[in-house]
């Protein structure tokens, strides 16, 4: 649409039912959605594993040529949908694609946040539970240093029920279930309050508080010096060097050899991709509440930059260097998100002066990072239920609470080895978001039209979007995403499919995903008919369906 839209075009527009209170509000809400456990726990592990400082070259290339352009595309599509009063992925995809198929493909924009929420809220409750354990002093790893790792693992298993199914619901109700119920209720309370009074207001306080907690822990880590004089090599400078010095992935090679390894580039792009929350269906939903002339270019860039700040400047300086200082190379080489976050770091805080307080700050910060993300996962579905079924916010929130609550209880019950959680994360939290991002990029660049998209981006823009964006979004991004999907199927599909066949819990987890998918497809069919009837006799109709 051009700036000089004709009156008839203006008549097509519909005022959205909700709005953001301020521009800063939406930037912090989008950044809050993106900043999560991956920034503090996944990124450092990926960097240390893939060449340290050398990893940052492909990392920044991926940010500039892949992450930010796809984010902009999502912001533009969302605002475009909001112009016609649509806020959910199915409606916006149908609007931009002018075909029922796109409406049904938009189901991914609902399925992904709903299913991820089912297990993410549980991890979020672990963070709060750990924070409380530090505050109340109930986390005890013993006095025998040789058993710290074992005790830390046992504490995690007992808290999460990772060593047997049904532990958390057997007999008396497990304390972690109580924490889960509190966190679950808090999420829905904030969602019920609405976009501006709930999500935006919470993120406006939570984001600065999260930064404050992270800075406090960062200062503590950077001032550790050499805690054990008998081990002079284990100091902060060497810890930072372990994390950041360019290094070869294989012994005997120069550091720049890592740049010739395709795996390094894929790992960097994957980290950017997951970190920015691309392909979650959240940015589209959030951007749909903007006004037609609101800027999306600077806002999108600022939200991405905020996410990068938390990831590179805070996440990159805290976890691995701290683990190195107290536990050496072996401790700093732990890269799994749960292992690093919930098993290794408690040992680090045990050694650290003031560790109980900083342990509390750290896990409370992770809780804030998680809740600002989980809130964003609920809004797309609430928006869909409201606009698709024409039911009120109370009914939408109640229905969503029932579905996600049952799903979350499923994950809680089948906690042994975290199989249910891992299966949902593999198929939805990893595979489905790449599929949705591919669908979005193809829709934006090839169906809606990259030229139209580029012109739409200029409306209200406070930054000039580079022309290179068109080439990147039309050719580079789809090609990259298709390569990633292809490689996933070649490298992972057989193993993942076998795991589903052989493990009953994994099979049940796939059934849960399919049940939610079918339920949502039925709702989209009902909503589609409603939208068609509603718009048939109005000026919006021909333009949309």
């Amino acid at each position: 649409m051009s700036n000089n839209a004709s009156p008839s075009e203006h008549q097509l527009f519909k005022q959205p039912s909700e709005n953001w209170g301020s521009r800063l509000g939406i930037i912090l809400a989008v950044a809050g959605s993106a900043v999560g456990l991956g920034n503090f726990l996944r990124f450092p592990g990926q960097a240390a594993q893939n060449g340290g400082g050398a990893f940052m070259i492909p990392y920044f290339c991926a940010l500039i040529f892949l992450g930010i352009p796809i984010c902009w595309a999502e912001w533009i599509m969302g605002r475009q949908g909001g112009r016609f009063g649509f806020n959910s992925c199915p409606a916006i995809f149908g609007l931009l694609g002018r075909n029922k198929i796109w409406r049904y493909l938009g189901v991914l924009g609902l399925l992904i946040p709903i299913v991820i929420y089912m297990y993410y809220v549980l991890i979020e409750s672990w963070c709060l539970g750990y924070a409380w354990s530090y505050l109340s002093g109930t986390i005890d790893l013993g006095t025998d240093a040789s058993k710290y790792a074992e005790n830390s693992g046992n504490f995690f298993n007992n808290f999460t029920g990772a060593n047997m199914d049904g532990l958390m619901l057997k007999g008396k109700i497990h304390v972690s279930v109580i924490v889960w119920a509190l966190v679950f209720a808090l999420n829905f309370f904030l969602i019920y309050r609405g976009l501006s009074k709930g999500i935006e207001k919470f993120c406006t306080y939570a984001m600065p508080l999260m930064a404050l907690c992270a800075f406090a822990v960062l200062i503590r880590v950077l001032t550790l010096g050499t805690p054990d004089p008998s081990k002079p090599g284990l100091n902060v400078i060497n810890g930072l060097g372990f994390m950041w010095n360019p290094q070869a992935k294989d012994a005997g090679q120069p550091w720049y050899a890592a740049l010739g390894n395709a795996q390094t580039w894929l790992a960097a792009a994957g980290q950017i991709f997951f970190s920015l929350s691309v392909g979650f269906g959240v940015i589209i939903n959030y951007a749909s509440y903007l006004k037609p002339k609101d800027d999306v270019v600077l806002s999108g860039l600022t939200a991405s930059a905020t996410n990068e700040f938390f990831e590179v400047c805070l996440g990159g300086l805290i976890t691995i260097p701290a683990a190195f200082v107290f536990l050496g190379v072996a401790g700093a080489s732990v890269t799994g998100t749960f292992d690093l976050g919930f098993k290794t770091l408690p040992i680090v805080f045990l050694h650290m002066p003031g560790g109980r307080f900083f342990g509390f700050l750290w896990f409370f910060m992770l809780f804030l990072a998680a809740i600002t993300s989980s809130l964003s996962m609920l809004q797309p579905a609430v928006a869909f239920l409201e606009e698709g079924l024409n039911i009120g916010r109370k009914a939408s929130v109640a229905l969503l609470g029932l579905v996600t609550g049952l799903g979350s209880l499923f994950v809680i019950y089948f906690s042994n080895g975290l199989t249910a959680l891992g299966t949902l994360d593999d198929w939805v939290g990893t595979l489905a978001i790449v599929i949705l991002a591919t669908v979005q990029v193809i829709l934006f660049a090839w169906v809606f039209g990259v030229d139209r998209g580029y012109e739409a981006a200029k409306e209200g823009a406070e930054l000039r979007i580079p022309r290179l964006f068109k080439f990147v979004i039309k050719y580079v991004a789809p090609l990259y995403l298709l390569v990633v999907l292809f490689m996933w199927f070649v490298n992972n599909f057989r193993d993942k499919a076998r795991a589903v066949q052989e493990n009953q819990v994994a099979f049940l987890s796939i059934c849960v995903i399919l049940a939610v998918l079918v339920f949502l497809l039925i709702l989209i069919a009902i909503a589609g008919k409603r939208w068609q009837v509603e718009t048939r006799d109005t000026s919006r109709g021909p333009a949309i369906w």
Partner: protein
Amino acid sequence: MLGSIGAVVSLITFCFYRVLSKPSAAEHMHAPLDIDTKDLNT
């Protein structure tokens, strides 16, 4: 390390400077204000 952190700090500083340097933009209220001016029906 310094290059990466410097780049990100520069980017976020630039972005927030642009966002906050326009008070009307930072404090821009998008939601319609519920003020009845009572001049529409007269």
